[in-house]
C-alpha cells in the first residue's frame, strides 16, 4: 500500500531515486496488469455467488401447475384488456372510485404527517451535531429493528388489537415512516452549518429556541421535500395495505375486482388511476429532490 507523501517529497524522491518498474508476471511468464486485491476479488465472488443462487432457484422454484407459455399468452391478453379497454362496469360509480382514492390518499397523508412530526422530534435526538452520540446510536439501532419488520406485518399486528381499518393501517404504516424520516431528517440536520447553531447557543438561547430559530429554518425545505418523498412511498404502502389487510381505498377495490369479480376493464380503470397519481407524485418528488436536497 503506497502512502501519500507531500508533493514536494514525491517530486524529489522521483527525480533522485527513479527506479525501473518491477513488472509482475504470471505463471506463463505473461505480463500482469491487474492486481487482485480484496476490493477487486470480493465483487466477482459476490457476483458469481448471487448468480449461481439465482440460476439454482429458477430451476427449483415452484411453478405450480402452470404451463408457462400459456400463462404468458394469457398475461398479455389480460394486459391488453386492462390497458386498452378500461371502463367501469357499473359495479361501482366513479364517485366510489374517487372516495377510494381519497381514502388511500388520506391514509398516506395522515401517516406521513404524524410520522413526520414524530420523526422530527426523534431526529433532534439522533443528529450527531446536536445530540449525545450514545443516544443517537441507541435510536438508530431501535430504528433498524423497526425497519426489519415489513410494514404489512406491522399493520396486521395492530389489527389484532384494534381491528382492521384506518386506525390500524395508519399506526402500522407509521413505523417505517418514522424510521425512514428520522434517518433522513437527522442527516439533513447534520448538514447544517455548525456556525449557525454555535452562534445561537453562544448567546444563551434555550434549546427550543435553537430548534425553532436555527435548525428548522435552515433545513425546512429539505425536510419538506423528504416528507413529500415519503408521502409518495406511503401512497404505495396504503394501496398494499388496502389490498392485503382490508384497510379500504384503491388497494381494497383492486383486490376485490381482481380476486372476486375478475373484471379486467375495471382493473384497467383502477390501474390507470393509480399510475396517474404515482407518476405525478414521482415527477414532483424528483424536482424537489434536485432543488432542495444536497447530495450527500
Amino acid at each position, binding site marked *: 500500500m503506497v502512502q501519500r507523501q507531500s508533493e514536494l517529497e514525491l517530486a524529489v524522491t522521483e527525480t533522485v531515486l527513479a527506479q525501473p518498474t518491477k513488472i509482475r508476471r504470471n505463471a506463463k511468464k505473461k505480463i500482469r496488469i491487474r492486481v487482485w486485491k480484496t476490493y477487486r476479488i470480493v465483487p466477482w465472488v459476490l457476483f458469481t455467488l448471487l448468480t449461481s443462487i439465482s440460476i439454482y432457484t429458477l430451476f427449483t422454484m415452484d411453478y405450480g401447475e402452470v404451463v408457462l407459455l400459456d400463462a404468458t399468452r394469457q398475461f398479455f391478453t389480460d394486459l391488453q384488456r386492462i390497458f386498452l379497454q378500461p371502463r367501469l362496469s357499473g359495479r361501482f360509480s366513479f364517485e366510489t372510485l374517487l372516495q377510494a382514492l381519497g381514502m388511500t390518499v388520506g391514509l398516506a397523508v395522515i401517516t406521513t404527517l404524524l410520522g413526520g412530526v414524530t420523526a422530527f422530534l426523534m431526529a433532534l435526538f439522533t443528529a450527531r451535531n446536536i445530540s449525545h452520540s450514545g443516544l443517537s446510536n441507541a435510536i438508530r439501532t431501535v430504528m433498524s429493528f423497526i425497519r426489519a*419488520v415489513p410494514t404489512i406485518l406491522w399493520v396486521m*399486528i395492530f389489527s389484532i388489537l384494534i381491528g382492521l381499518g384506518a386506525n390500524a393501517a395508519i399506526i402500522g404504516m407509521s413505523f417505517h415512516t418514522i424510521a425512514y424520516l428520522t434517518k433522513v431528517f437527522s442527516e439533513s440536520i447534520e448538514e447544517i452549518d455548525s456556525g449557525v447553531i454555535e452562534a445561537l447557543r453562544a448567546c444563551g438561547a434555550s434549546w427550543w429556541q435553537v430548534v425553532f430559530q436555527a435548525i428548522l*429554518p435552515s433545513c425546512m425545505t429539505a425536510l419538506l421535500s423528504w416528507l413529500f418523498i415519503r408521502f409518495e412511498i406511503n401512497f404505495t404502502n396504503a394501496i398494499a395495505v388496502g389490498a392485503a389487510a382490508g384497510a379500504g381505498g384503491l388497494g381494497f377495490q383492486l383486490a376485490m375486482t381482481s380476486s372476486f369479480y375478475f373484471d379486467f376493464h375495471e382493473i384497467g380503470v383502477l390501474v390507470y388511476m393509480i399510475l396517474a397519481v404515482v407518476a405525478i407524485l414521482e415527477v414532483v418528488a424528483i424536482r424537489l429532490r434536485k432543488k432542495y436536497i444536497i447530495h450527500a
Partner: protein
Amino acid sequence: MDKTLNQDLFRKKKQFLFVTLFSFVVVYVVFSQFVGFQFGAAIAAIPQSFVWLFTNFIPTENSIQSLPLILSKLLETVLLSITATMTATVFSLITAIIGSETTGLNKGTKTVARVFASFFRNIPIVVWAMVLLLSFKQNEFTGYLAITFTTYGYLTRSFMETIDEVAGSITEAMTATGASYFAIIFQGVLPMVFGQLISWILFMIENNIRDATLVGILTGTGIGFLFDLYYKKFRYDMAGMVILTIVIIVIALELSSNKIRRMIH
C-alpha cells in the same frame, strides 16, 4: 441595510414555517374526518399492543417446534428476493446503459428507457402481483415476476443516475482516444460504477425480502403466507416466531451488506 435584509429574510422564513404548519393541521383534520381516523384510540392502542406483543409473541415450546418450517419458508423468500433482484439487474443494466444521458445511443432510446423504467416502477408491487395472479395463478413464480418487474423499474432509474453522475468524465476521455462504444462501456463505464452498482443490488435484495413477504400473502407462498396462516388461525405464538426470524435475517443481511460495501471500497 444589511440588517433589514436579514430581518426580512427571517420574517419570511418564519411566515413560511407558520403557513406550512397551519396547512398541515388543516389537511390533517380534513383527512382524519374523511378516513375515520381516531387519534386518541389509535395512540392508546400502541402501549396496549406492545404489551400484548411481548406477552403473546414470545417463543413457546410449540412455536419452537415449527421453527424448521419457518426457516425453510424464510429461505425460500430470501432466495426469491435474490433471484428476482439479479434477474432485474441484467435487464436494468442494459436499459440503463442505452438510456442514460452519458452512454445512451440516441434521443429515442433515452426516452423509451425512461418511460419503461417509470412504468414498471410506478405500478405498485401489489398491483403487479394481483394482475399476474390472474394468469400465473398462486405460486412462487408469480411473486418472482412481480418483484422482478418492480425492481427493474427501480434499478433502471438508479443505474441511470449513477452512470450520469460518475461516468461522464471517463466516457469523454475514452471517446477522445477513439475507443469503440463497447470498449468504453466495459473498460471505462462499468469499472467506474461497479462499486455503486453492487451497493444498489445489496440494497434491493434487502428491500425485496420485505416486498416478498407482502407479495407472499397474496400469492400464497413464502414467509408472508406462513405468517398470514398463523395469523388467521390465531396462532400468535407462531406468528411471533415468524416475526422474530424475519428481524434476525434482515438485520444479519444489513450487517453483511455493510461489511461487503466496506470491503469493496
